[in-house]
């Protein structure tokens, strides 16, 4: 049992090690088999776990070895598999496997084929560790591990310094969140004496008062970590830039799995968050603010991947909103459906750029509907699910979130209204993308069509995006069941209707009144558009407040200011030395004179001492 569980993250990691060590010696096909196959095997093992769990929902735990044990602290390399974990593992390995298969074709011509698969496998392994971890320290290992893989993959094409900058930004910004999370772990351990998740939740329930200072502090720090990893306000700025990596990477890491780790963390530790209502409310507001900001920014982007990136930020905002109002299962549900349709959209975008000479600007595409039908189908379904059109997967999850938000006490209607506005914006930007890129006249001719390794994952994800809403997650007993929220029918109808309104507007704006010329490169002709295009200029603000001062400070300190002090001591010494050396003039008469002075002094001393 232990071995089977350990093999789930272990296989991809083993494969990653092999690929790093021997990647240059083995042929590409073998690398592909190793890379995709190991994840596939993992997926099979996960499927076994899933079936077992569906059959009899029992928690499985396994301890491999004691990681470290000092004084009262101990942490083990141990797994804890319950419904939530199984769902996450299924998403990670399932979607992950599809993306790996897709990548085989996508990356076939790249010179660093095996390096790519090594990183991807490492990522899958780390992500699995993250969700399977039985204690927060192991979770943190996975947490940082996926961050590292994200760094490696965003900067995969390292020759372009811009990619390196994006990768570093992604790592450093999330690292800010990680530092906060680490502090959260310290608070938890100091107060509760353990980092094992289950005993921790138990101890918290016993020892913490609802709304006490420590719970709020601890959860707020954990939220900091979640916000960093899940690209929420105020640490969201890294995600749009992270699109510098290969597109399947964006699909896997920056859409389906890693960025939802924050959601997983909050859901996993919901017991703590429920004890800190203030933090939970903050989660909801963070989610709402993020989803509106990102959706409005997505409205004016031109780079297909940036649109999707902002869309991802926005969708995770929905998940946070769900978590914030206590609808944890809807949050996880949206996580899953989002993984399907966003992976689909990203892979579709990858297919477009793959076939279109790496073109990413949607205004230089056009008319792809007939030229790349499979991709068009993917985008159609993906956009529909993203916009939460009825009966797609996204519809069920997002509808649940909106209605749950409405029922939240006090602030509910406000959250609902904000979420609704977000839904409107979502449908507008997603169909804007679809209409601009796939309808109208062709601007660029594709030079090939996606082959089977790319098409099959797309089609599977299409099916999942359509039907994924029907999956019922085995989350009973793991997360508090919100049930289907009871709201007035009018609210339900409005929630369903608004996205359709958005589609209609997009149709009017981009098909009927198709803009004659593409907008300026810098995005936006008006100041408002420019503001939105720059993501509300948060980046500029951070540059001004943090990056530039840090660089300036570093430049000032470059020559080691502390050394000035020691150099001062040295100079003083040298001065004294010069003073003494000046006495040695080399003039005989001066020596004679000093000799006499000394003689006088000696005689005087003799006189004084012996009168």
């Amino acid at each position, binding site marked *: 049992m232990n071995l089977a569980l350990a093999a789930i993250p272990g296989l991809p990691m083993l494969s990653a090690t092999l690929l790093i060590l021997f990647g240059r010696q083995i042929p590409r096909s073998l690398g592909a088999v190793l890379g995709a196959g190991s994840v596939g095997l993992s997926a099979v093992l996960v499927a076994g776990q899933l079936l077992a769990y569906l059959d009899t929902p029992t928690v499985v735990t396994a301890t491999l070895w004691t990681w470290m044990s000092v004084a009262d602290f101990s942490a083990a390399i141990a797994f804890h598999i319950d419904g939530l974990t199984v769902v996450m593992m299924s998403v990670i390995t399932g979607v992950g496997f599809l993306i790996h298969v897709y990548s085989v074709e996508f990356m076939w011509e790249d010179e660093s084929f095996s390096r790519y698969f090594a990183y991807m496998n490492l990522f899958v392994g780390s992500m699995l560790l993250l969700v399977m971890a039985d204690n927060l320290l192991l979770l943190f290992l996975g947490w940082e591990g996926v961050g590292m893989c994200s760094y490696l993959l965003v900067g995969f094409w390292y020759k372009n310094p811009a990619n390196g900058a994006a990768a570093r930004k992604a790592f450093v910004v999330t690292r800010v969140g990680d530092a906060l999370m680490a502090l959260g772990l310290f608070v938890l351990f100091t107060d509760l004496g353990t980092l094992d998740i289950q005993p921790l939740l138990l101890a918290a329930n016993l020892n913490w008062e609802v709304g006490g200072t420590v719970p709020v502090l601890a959860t707020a720090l954990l939220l900091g970590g979640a916000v960093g990893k899940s690209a929420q306000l105020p640490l969201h700025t890294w995600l749009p830039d992270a699109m510098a990596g290969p597109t399947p990477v964006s699909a896997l890491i920056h859409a389906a799995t890693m960025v939802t780790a924050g959601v997983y963390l909050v859901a996993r530790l919901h017991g703590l968050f429920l004890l800190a209502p203030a933090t939970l409310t903050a989660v909801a507001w963070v989610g709402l603010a993020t989803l509106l900001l990102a959706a409005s920014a997505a409205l004016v982007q031109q780079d297909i991947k940036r649109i999707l990136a902002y869309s991802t930020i926005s969708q995770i905002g929905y998940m946070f909103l769900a978590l914030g109002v206590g609808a944890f299962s809807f949050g996880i549900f949206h996580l899953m459906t989002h993984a399907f349709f966003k992976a689909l959209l990203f892979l579709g975008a990858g297919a477009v750029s793959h076939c279109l000479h790496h073109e990413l600007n949607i205004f230089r595409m056009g008319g792809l509907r007939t030229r790349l039908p499979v991709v068009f189908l993917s985008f159609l379904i993906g956009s529909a699910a993203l916009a939460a059109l009825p009966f797609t997967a996204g519809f069920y999850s997002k509808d649940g979130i909106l209605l749950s938000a409405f029922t939240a006490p006090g602030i509910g209607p406000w959250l609902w209204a904000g979420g609704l506005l977000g839904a409107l914006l979502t449908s507008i930007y997603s169909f804007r993308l679809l209409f601009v890129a796939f309808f109208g006249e062709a601007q660029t001719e594709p030079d090939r069509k996606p082959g089977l390794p790319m098409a099959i994952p797309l089609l599977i994800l299409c099916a999942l995006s359509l039907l994924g809403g029907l999956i019922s997650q085995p989350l009973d007993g793991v997360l508090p069941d919100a049930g289907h929220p009871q709201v007035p029918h009018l609210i339900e109808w409005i929630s369903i209707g608004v996205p359709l309104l958005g589609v209609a507007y997009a149709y009017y704006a981009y098909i009927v009144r198709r803009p004659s010329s593409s907008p300026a490169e810098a995005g936006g002709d008006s100041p408002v558009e420019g503001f939105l295009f720059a993501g509300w200029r948060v980046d500029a603000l951070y540059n001004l407040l943090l990056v530039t001062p840090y660089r300036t400070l570093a430049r000032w300190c470059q020559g080691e200011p502390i050394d000035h002090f020691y150099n001062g001591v040295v100079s003083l010494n040298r001065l004294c030395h010069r003073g003494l050396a000046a006495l*040695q003039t*080399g003039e*005989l*008469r001066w020596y*004679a004179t000093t000799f*006499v002075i000394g003689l006088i002094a000696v005689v005087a001393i003799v006189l004084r001492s012996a009168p």
Partner: protein
Amino acid sequence: MDGLLIPLEHVLLVAGILFACGLGGLMLRRNLLFMLMSLEVMLNSAALAFIAAGARWQEADGQVMFLLVLTVAAAEVAVGLGLVLQIQRRYRTLDMDAVTRLQE
């Protein structure tokens, strides 16, 4: 013949004055030749002090010491005058303030 009965301090005073003169000359003069003469005067004054002490206790040691001082003076003058010639040849001056190579 017998010597005189003179207070020892008076002889020593004379020796002291001579020594001071020599010292003053050493400090005052810039010419190496005169500096050497000053040294001679100082050595001589020391010799005088020895003789006085020998006379005080009626011992031969004072005169022995005078002899040694004499040897030292002779040796010093021989080398010193050799240096005078050499310096004059090399620097074209006997001004010791100009010859400050000792510093290095």
